[in-house]
């Protein structure tokens, strides 16, 4: 069985470093609670091995404008 990450419908997911995380939160002047969430039981989270509290950077391909970035914080569940 191939990994779900290889499916063309699954965008690129990466765990960002602690420094990047701080920079992100500072950029939008928000706390971790104000980021969009993703459950730790999410299949992608399991595959990339993200822990609760990690922030995942998702690079999506948007047809019109190239790619967009989206960030989600892993929560318990």
């Amino acid at each position: 069985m191939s990994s779900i990450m290889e499916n063309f419908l699954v965008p690129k997911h990466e765990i960002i470093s602690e420094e990047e995380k701080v920079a992100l939160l500072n950029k939008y002047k928000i706390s971790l609670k104000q980021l969009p969430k993703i459950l730790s039981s999410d299949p992608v989270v399991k595959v990339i091995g993200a822990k609760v509290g990690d922030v995942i950077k998702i690079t999506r391909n948007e047809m019109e404008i190239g790619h967009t970035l989206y960030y989600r914080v892993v929560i318990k569940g």
Partner: protein
Amino acid sequence: MEVGKVDSIKFEIMSPYMIKKMAAVKIEKPELYDPDGYPIDGGLMDLRLGVIDPGLRCKTCGGKMGTCPGHFGYLELTKPVIHPLFAKKIYQILKVTCPVCGRVMTSDENIAKKKPMLNKLYKSAPKTCPHCGAKATEIKFQKPTIFYEDGKDLNPEQIRERLEKIPDSDLPVLGISTRPEYMILTVLPIPPVTVRPSIVLETGERSEDDLTHKLIDIVRINDRLKKNIELGAPDFIIDDIWQLLQYHVSTYFDNEISNLPPARHRSGRALRTLAQRLTKKEGRFRGNLTGKRVNFSARTVISPDTMISVNEVGIPEVIAKTLTVPDHVTEKNIDEMRKIVLNGPDVLNGANYVVRPDGMRKRVMDLNKEEIAKEITPGYIVERHLKDGDIVLFNRQPSLHRMSIMAHKAKIMPYRTFRLNLCETIPYNADFDGDEMNLHVPQTEEARIEAEKLMLVENNIRSPRYGLPVIAFKHDHISGCYFLTREGAKFSKEEVAYLLNLIGKKSPGHEMVGKELFSLILPDDLNMEFVSSYCVGCDTCLKDKCPYDSYVVIKNGKLLHGIIDEAALGERKGKLLNKIDMKYGHARARQFMDELSKLALGVLSLRGFTISISDFDISDDGEKKIKDTKKKFEREAEKLVENYNNGRMEKLSGMTQEKTLEMYMQQIASKVSDQTGKVIKNSVNDKSSAVIMAKTGARGSYVNLSQTAAIVGQESLEGERINRGYTGRTTSHFKRGDLGLKARGFVEGNYRHGLNAIEFFFDAINSRENLMDKSLQTRHSGYMERRLVSALQDLRVEYDGTVRDNRGVIIQFMPGSDSLDPSKINHGEIDLNLVRENIEGENDD
């Protein structure tokens, strides 16, 4: 300021101790006032329950009316009664708990899990208690509040004892966190008088609130029950009174319980008790919390005005004199403001109120207007009447998309209706058969600017849904443009003068061709080519040599070829409007629309425009052809049916013989319509108004045309030929099992010559289905819109470009995740020609 955050809210059932603790008064007397009209101590209007009369002070907190929130009292019930809204829960709990030991009749593991499972448990309650082995009793519940155990009455006192026996440890399984016996009332909280204020009538009489009436009943019956018990009355009398008390308490909470007659007022009107205050459309939630009322708004019937700008709305003088805008008095405008105040409240451009710098409001009257005019200095605020050019919001319900509410510039007019430009009927979905619309006046400078920049009509010409104009031309506008721009349209010197006068342009003083006239209002450097909707669709397009003048060529702002019609100006089509709006800006597009609509309607009024039944006359040759096609396919259909009846019909794959026949018959029916449609296209009078409207897209279509002139065609019900009615046939005019065209709703006639009775019936079946579908669809879409609004109402785009909700939680990092505004994109496509033009500069060929 740092605001504390609410982590969670827990709802519980109030305990009798709590009710007593929070109460300020113990209610003991059913009377309200003594003979002097003074509230009785311990009565339901006790002064300690709060103040409702201005000027008095509260006996509990000392606050005045408005500052004292009111205080609860309590009533000690002589015998416990069931809280009617908890009756079902009580029943469920009784059913799953042991009558002897009080434990929940399920395994210890289940109880230890602490997971609420009452619903599961009560569906399959065990026969014996797993904890003490006692036999379970059969509990019966008769709505609304009567319980039986093994056929014997179970009164609230007994039920309460049962519930008291349930240990705390078993409560989580039942899904409750409070003591269950609190669901049986022993103490009734008496709401403060502020909740049930009495009104003093003109006669000096007091009229009490419905709740007070209900409470009087409860207190009185409670008192009677107590006295009867003290006197040692027989059990059946006590039970009767007890039941009556239960009835009063039940209706006090909810007066619309099924199987319980509603408590009525002396006049026979049902009382509006606690539940009725909250539920339904006029209840607290829908009526007061979700639907708030506003000031500075107006509503009246709408009517059309062809001379008004798209940006404007005509406002009746009466409304303009009632709605006001607060204007700050400054050194620069003080003279003007004095003039406004001197006009008084009854003259247009006057003022209704003046606000002093200390916040005091003064009403401007004819008596004191001179005095106030002298008094005002910079720092005062004058609430002046609405005047021409003020920004107002205009709305028509249902507000299904954002163009349902747009900002307009006020134009004060005589008479009593709102006047609007006809192009706006499309986004508002308005017509003038009695429609009413709402108007709101923004009260602050920020609100006005925001409304103007985002919501002004001209800024919403192009829809964010499909990136083409929604504010566009329709009906007569398009017919008018056809007569203005068609080949051979000529206007005399006088006509030119009349038309140009309409749009405030100077007449050149000679006769003009329609296309020249039209070119006058185009932007000077406009270049474009497109196919108009008049196009008949030739195999090879001759472009600017089109014999039907259906290929539009605009060069340097001059219309050289082509008819301007729906393809140039219509809703969701309008190429010309679209281009002007994108290239020359919203204001230019608005100007173009204002001028063209006046011009087009001017042309129509010079010429006149009407339709008649003779518009649908077709040539003899055409009649014959139509007759022939009808016959030809009828014969074909007959043959098919014959084959089917003989069992010689070949089945298509995946279909039964019946289905195969149905499919073929439907194909034939549509072929008849198609081919007659084609005949109609060629044999109808091109110059008749109805045909012109169909071809230009002003109104109607070829389908309408051919249904009127030639054949109505197959009527359908639920996507099939009509096949219901009697056994095996649609009506008794046909043989059973007749599957022919006519027997299954094919209408051979046309609207011009009229349908026969059977055809008419089939037509009515079809019309009814369409009507039903339409009304169900609107209900459906209305609810979908409501759900969308509820889900999205708090989202907004912050200054950093993120989309956030009201907690500041990021929903999207960019609006729509791509930051693209569909209303700024040409029909969702990137127009490479436009890009090229912008890079290279124009006029390069």
